[in-house]
């Protein structure tokens, strides 16, 4: 198992480290923007000229009532931050089974004394490590930026909770993609389908927040269970969101493991 984990680390480490550094640099940059530009005032002007249904979005929902701390929280909700995490989660899961079958190496690897559960377990363990590194990279970027630009620092417990929420969200994307991956034979098609679902989920979340008539859609989006503003600004516990993401991931992983144990290779 350790052998495969080391192989995955050698193969993906650069990709994961670069993504974690980009995420950290992005959060640091958000701190720089908040400290040097009065974004709050600029957005207030923008908000005044926006249609009524968008005014709420530009205020409470995404920017934490346009405070500097709200802006920092938005750095975690920015499409860039969200896409980065989804990218790592989806790429790792699609390569784990379908991608490996596509490149043709699976047959030789599984003919070694390595059980399918250990094979999948190694991929899951590596993905959890990679997603932890990414989440902690973001938290490190925010903390460093706040210190460097003398901004009021978030409580470490809140930042840790946010990192955990971000981590669980990406775990959910990883697990869902892994379900597709254990059925598939081509990594590209699996990741394409997963990215499409992630995009759809994001769009559902935005529409649900913008249009009161579409609020009923919100529970069907995984992004509904990811709330940087609520954790950082309102200090909410968000235990139910954590539970939903955790249970969703566990069910998907369990199903993927069950299916992988039974599928024919290739």
């Amino acid at each position, binding site marked *: 198992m350790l*052998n495969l984990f080391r192989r995955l680390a050698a*193969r993906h480490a650069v990709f994961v480290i670069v993504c974690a550094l980009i995420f950290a640099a992005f959060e640091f940059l958000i701190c720089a923007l908040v400290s040097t530009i009065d974004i709050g005032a600029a957005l207030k002007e923008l908000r005044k000229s926006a249609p009524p249904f968008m005014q709420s979005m530009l205020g409470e929902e995404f920017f934490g009532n346009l405070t500097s701390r709200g802006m920092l929280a938005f750095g975690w909700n920015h499409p860039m931050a969200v896409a980065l995490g989804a990218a790592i989660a989806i790429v790792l899961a699609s390569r784990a089974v379908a991608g490996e079958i596509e*490149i043709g190496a699976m047959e*030789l690897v599984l*003919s070694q*004394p*390595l059980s399918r559960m250990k094979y999948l377990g190694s991929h899951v363990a590596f993905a959890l490590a990679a997603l932890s590194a990414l989440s902690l990279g973001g938290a490190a970027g925010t903390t460093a930026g706040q210190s460097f630009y003398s901004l009021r620092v978030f409580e470490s417990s809140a930042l840790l909770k946010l990192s955990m929420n971000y981590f669980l969200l990406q775990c959910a994307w990883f697990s869902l993609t892994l379900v597709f991956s254990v059925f598939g034979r081509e990594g590209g098609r699996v990741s394409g389908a997963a990215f499409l679902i992630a995009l759809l989920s994001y769009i559902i979340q935005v529409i649900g927040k913008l249009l009161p008539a579409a609020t009923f859609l919100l529970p069907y989006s995984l992004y509904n269970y990811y709330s940087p503003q609520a954790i950082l600004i309102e200090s909410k516990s968000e235990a139910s969101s954590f539970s939903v993401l955790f249970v969703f991931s566990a069910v998907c992983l369990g199903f993927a493991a069950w299916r992988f144990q039974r599928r024919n290779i*290739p």
Partner: protein
Amino acid sequence: MSNLQVSNLSKRYGKVQALRDASFSLEAGEIFGYLGPNGAGKTTTLRIILGLVRATSGEVRLFGKSTMHAEERAAMGFLPGELRLYSDMTGLATLSYFARYRPERPPVLREKLLEAFGVERSVLSRKIKFLSHGTKQKIGLIIAMQHDPDLLLLDEPTTGLDPLVQQAFRESVLDFARRGRAVFFSSHVLSEVEAVCGRVAILRAGGIVAVESIDNLRGKMLRRLKARFRGAAPADLARTTGVTSAEILGNEAVVWVQGDVNPLLRRLAQADVENFVFPEPELEDIFMSYYREGKGADA
């Protein structure tokens, strides 16, 4: 106890019957040929033995135990028919990576095999993506054999190997058998199976047509001889001992012979032969032998 025991193995993919009631066993020290054309079910059999594909029915026992335990695979070596390695790894890293899956069986034969197959150190330091097909095949063979497995499963092992390396490979396989290892040798090339195997299963359209010793196979083999004569071809060729049929057209004859070819050669020596061709028997010729035999039995 057999190293490998396959009983009534069948595999169906939807409407396609890939394998039908295959049964055979493989003892220690034996090289067992698994001969059949492409699509006959050879790779499916191997995948079922390795637990990669689930059989529709039947049973596989490895060293007397069920195949579904990963630990049993520690004593096995496998070369897939379509070998794919990680292109970003070097040759040496690839060998070490697969060796690490068996800490209890170190790669004791690696150096010997590298030398036998003519793989130089400089080649091993290159990434797989820069290696030729033949070199990748050699690395695949070393992955399968380096830990001196008790059971070696080879699917079309000589693909892409030059004749010298093929010879070195045959010697390595024979050495394995001499040391009490069992070798399962799947191929569609008759001459290659004939050169190393003691017994052979002949597979066609998912079913095993026969399991024979190589000597019996040679005896049953129907071979084709084409001869051109100066003048008319002898009309009594079909009556020569061992000849099963003869087609005579002017000064040319196509003769089918089974078993000992000496009576036919003696008869030809009495005629004025201008030219004759006696090609290596092909897989289809063997199938023809068994097909005719089956028909005869039916009748």
